[in-house]
């Protein structure tokens, strides 16, 4: 049997397809992307090495700064809000028996729907003459907010609106992750804490929370990478407008690369995005992940 499991041909048969695909479609392009980021490259001109010029250009690019700021805002907002609200929903749902599945499934529903379609849907809800603004006008509010058109403040209103829509769409996932972890905690631990005189909130604070800490790391890195990759909702709700104020890294990359065909420049944005993704994942796993408890 050992001979069979060491058969070189069998190993090649099982490993080669995945290895080739992974290398050719994922790994080589990443390396190429890094190379292109040091090149001047567009539809008409082949790649020509120009050193760090693309990165210098990025630093003086106003839209890039806005995009980076917005992406960072999304990152922080989604990590914090998804943690808080996801945990809150999970805590509520684990306290009821009847109808738990119904509520759980309703809250999870937007996670499986196309965010392109949902983006369009919310775009209409926040458009000036329909949806919420119309409802407010009918109720007697004189000048309802401009929602997706407003440009005042450091974090402008459209960003908050989009961030809330994103929270609405994806909080179900965080909720489910925390619920899965909470229901994995053994009943006897809970009972022990009740016998020791803990109230329900105290049990949640001192027993449940420490035990779901590893899941916090998992959920947070999922949220963080998701929020950095964020594209569909913004593209369909504002397309980066008004005046590039709601641009994020992914939409900026798309604009530069495929509207203006600046491949080299867009690759540099992609490299920044990649570094951010890797850094954030490592950071969260270092800071949040602690020892695993026996459950």
């Amino acid at each position, binding site marked *: 049997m050992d001979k069979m499991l060491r058969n070189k041909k069998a190993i090649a048969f099982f490993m080669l397809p995945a290895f080739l695909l992974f290398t050719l479609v994922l790994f080589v392009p990443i390396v190429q992307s890094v190379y292109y980021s040091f090149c001047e490259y567009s539809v008409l001109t082949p790649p020509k090495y120009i050193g760090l010029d693309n990165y210098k250009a990025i630093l003086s690019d106003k839209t890039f700064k806005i995009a980076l700021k917005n992406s960072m805002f999304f990152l922080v907002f989604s990590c914090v809000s998804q943690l808080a609200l996801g945990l809150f929903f999970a805590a509520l749902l684990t306290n009821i028996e009847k109808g738990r599945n119904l509520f759980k499934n309703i809250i999870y529903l937007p996670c499986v729907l196309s965010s392109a379609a949902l983006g369009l849907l919310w775009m209409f809800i926040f458009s000036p003459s329909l949806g919420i603004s119309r409802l407010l006008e009918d109720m007697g509010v004189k000048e309802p907010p401009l929602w997706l058109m407003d440009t005042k403040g450091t974090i402008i209103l459209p960003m908050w609106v989009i961030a809330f829509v994103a929270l609405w769409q994806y909080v179900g996932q965080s909720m489910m992750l925390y619920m899965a972890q909470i229901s994995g905690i053994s009943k006897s631990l809970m009972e022990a804490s009740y016998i020791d005189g803990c109230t329900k909130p105290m049990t949640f604070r001192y027993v449940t929370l420490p035990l779901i800490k590893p899941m916090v790391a998992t959920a947070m890195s999922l949220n963080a990478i998701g929020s950095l990759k964020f594209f569909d909702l913004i593209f369909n709700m504002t397309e980066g407008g008004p005046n590039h104020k709601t641009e994020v890294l992914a939409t900026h990359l798309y604009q530069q690369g495929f509207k203006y065909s600046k491949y080299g420049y867009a690759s540099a944005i992609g490299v920044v995005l*990649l570094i951010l993704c890797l850094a954030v994942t490592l950071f969260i796993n270092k800071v949040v992940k602690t020892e695993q408890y026996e459950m």
Partner: protein
Amino acid sequence: MSSSKKEVAALDPSSKKKITPVQIVIYVFLTIIAVTYLLPLLWVFNVSFKTNKEIFTAPFALPEKITFDNYSFAWTAGNLGTASLNSLIVCVISLVLSMLIGSMAAFGISRLHWKGSKLAMTYFLTGMMIPIHCVLIPLFTRFAKVTQFVNNNLGIEGFHLTNSLTSLVLPYLTFSLPITIFIMEGFFSSMPNELIECACMEGANIFQIFFKICLPLGRTGLFVTGLMTFVGNWNELLLAMVFISDETKKTLPVSLSKFVGPYNTNYSQMFAAIMIAIIPTIIVYCAFSNKIVDGLTAGAVKG
């Protein structure tokens, strides 16, 4: 022992059969949340049956009469039928291939003995952290070059890697591999050694062991990874938008985004288009919601 259990039951509010006041508050709160989740969808559903004029005069009232004109128009003008079919083709092909290739690699890593299997696993796992945006430009230019090369040098006309569904299947499939390999590796390495030894005694070769024993036993894992892959690819917008410009090859999210936009002024049709895009998912979700939610969560927990 039994008396202490009773005490615990009395102390633990959740084990009482009666609904406590706290739970009533929870139910009220959850109902409000559920309404905020369903109301936007119901509103669009309602509006999609109205005429364009009605939308602006009374956006919140029920439609005067129900017609499916908006739907039939959106279906034909937005090319949504072709788009749905394209999406289905792309997603099913990448689903089947990623499950097959991914579990083959997972089997190779977890069950076959060779140096570097650990290293290979690490190599595949790094793929989970890489956003698809980073490979957009190199893939786009590479596909064009390959097409040109094949057309000019090999003399095969009509070969198109750009602007074809293949250009979507390749990256979708590849980006699903890391999670598939990761989850399936877990399943395969937890299978008992005796199983494979037994099969070996009975004279099964390595391919029979994989296809007839390990793969069927790992079907829970296959379901989970397949679900994640399918949902993710079905909703993917960026790649599909960049790689496909031919109207007849666009996938559903792209056709929808193109149809619903600033150049279209017929709101009721746009609402109908949105509904067409999400109704199939909602129906499937309603039918298998518990399985879908648990499957996707299991996948995310492991990933």
